[in-house]
């Protein structure tokens, strides 16, 4: 669209304190009328030096920091860290602990996606309704986690080698009851958004990115799969006990905001399937930690990069050890950090109002971007 009169570009600051930026994030938009001509993403407002802290804490203290780097999908973050330490130390995790981990991670994925559904509805203008529905379901999962770990958000439940303590009484029944409620919740969100005409109008063919560009940018998670690339670390590089479950990897077609939403919705259903199978297969009793774990963990020198499929994409921990009780270097590869790089390409050429929709569709967590 070219105006037949002279226009000037205007810079608009969105954020860092703005409800649509999902945290402290600033976009400098260069706009020509209603069209975005350029975008500069400014991050770092929440930088707490997590990697430096991880270098200075021992391996058990690091688990607590991992919770705080990714405060909406804490279990995958913990999992990648403890798995990296286990790979370096050569520890074998008892089977029962692996199943409990998978159940935690998948329920966490559902909770995180509910949070996305709720907030995203608000982004596109379904004001309030989806937010309440999403948070109602998320709260159910958090209450379950609270009973399991004693904490609503900062669980610190996984340990190198297994779990901190045995699950609560009636774990399986409570998990199954929770799943029934979550299934209803997923259907509620589905009924509220999926065929909503306004929702489709705001998201279909908005913020498109091609599969080739997605791979060049190193995107991962639902943002990558929405472009049609069928890559899921759980499926393609199975870790933990994921190779024992039957689940599908949903992909999109256009790589637009609507596909990202649909991929997440379907992922929630698949996560329910995984938890159901895990509850069926889980050994009813048995150890949750290897015997004779040392009190103070010292890992041999070496390095390993362990990616897991977090709710937002590939969450990787690159652990370098030189012996001793704390890492020499612990790099946290956070999915949103990488995904956010593509924001400029997705947004330039779209309307200003859509920039918020596109930003929301990445499902960003700023604490994980800035670390």
């Amino acid at each position, binding site marked *: 669209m070219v105006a037949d009169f002279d226009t000037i570009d205007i810079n608009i600051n969105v954020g860092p304190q703005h409800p649509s930026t999902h945290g402290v994030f600033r976009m400098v938009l260069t706009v020509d009328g209603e069209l975005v001509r350029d975008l500069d993403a400014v991050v770092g407002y929440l930088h707490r030096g997590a990697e430096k802290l991880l270098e200075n804490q021992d391996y058990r203290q690091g688990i607590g920091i991992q919770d705080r780097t990714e405060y909406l999908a804490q279990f995958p973050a913990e999992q990648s860290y403890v798995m990296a330490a286990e790979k370096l130390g050569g520890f074998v995790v008892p089977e029962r602990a692996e199943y409990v981990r998978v159940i935690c991670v998948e329920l966490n994925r559902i909770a995180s996606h509910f949070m996305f559904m709720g907030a995203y509805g608000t982004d596109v203008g379904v004001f309030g309704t989806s937010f309440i529905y999403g948070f109602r379901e998320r709260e159910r999962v958090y209450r379950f986690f609270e009973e399991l770990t004693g904490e609503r958000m900062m669980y610190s439940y996984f340990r190198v080698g297994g779990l901190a303590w045995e699950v609560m009484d009636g774990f399986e029944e409570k998990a199954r009851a929770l799943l029934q409620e979550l299934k209803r919740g997923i259907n509620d969100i589905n009924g509220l958004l999926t065929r909503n005409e306004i929702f489709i109008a705001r998201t279909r063919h908005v913020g498109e990115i091609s599969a080739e560009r997605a791979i060049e940018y190193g995107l991962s998670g639902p943002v990558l799969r929405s472009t049609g690339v069928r890559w899921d670390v759980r499926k393609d590089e199975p870790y933990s006990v994921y190779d024992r479950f039957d689940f599908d990897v949903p992909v999109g077609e256009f790589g637009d905001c609507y596909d990202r939403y649909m991929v997440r919705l379907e992922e929630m259903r698949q996560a329910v399937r995984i938890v159901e199978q895990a509850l069926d297969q889980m050994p009813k009793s048995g150890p949750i930690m290897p015997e004779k774990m040392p009190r103070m963990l010292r890992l041999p020198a070496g390095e390993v*990069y362990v990616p897991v499929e977090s709710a937002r994409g590939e969450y990787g921990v690159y652990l370098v050890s030189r012996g001793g009780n704390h890492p020499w270097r612990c790099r946290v590869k956070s999915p949103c950090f990488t995904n956010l790089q593509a924001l400029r390409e997705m947004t330039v050429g779209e309307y200003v109002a859509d920039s918020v929709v596109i930003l929301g569709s990445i499902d960003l967590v700023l604490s994980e971007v800035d670390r």
Partner: protein
Amino acid sequence: MAEESAQSSPSAEVDDGVPELFQRSFPDVTFQAGRNAAGQAILSVDRKDAARVLRGCKEDPSLGFDYLRNLCGVDLEAQGIEVVYHLLNMRTKQNVAIKTVAPADDCWVEAITPFWPGANWHERETREMFGVEFVGHPDPRNLLLDEDMTIHPLLKAHPLADIELFQGVDVF
């Protein structure tokens, strides 16, 4: 070190052919091959060859390592800064880590952002955290740190301050 009973045998010798594949594709480059704890290949290359090898990874379909998983620095103290590129081949599901070292007194490597957009923020972060200059980077500003901050916090030469010092001693 952990007790033997809790540990499995160390990762066995893996032969995925990745080091040989790279040597065939770049006959004039010297690779130092190794394996990490997960059995994935680690290839150390000289700094002058690093960008060329990485361009080949992305653009040569016979290599196919066109997905950049991670890029970061590691402080080797006296030897300088090691820059690590974790790459993935989505078709063969093989991983490789390319490493190159920038000496401490002449701390630069060639940027890969001009041909690999996904490296952009990673290089900016590594630059500000370790002081590695990425030559040819189109936008070498600080990313996570303040714009005018010139120290490099992830260097081992910058230890964490005492917590009292950090919060101000005369608080109490």
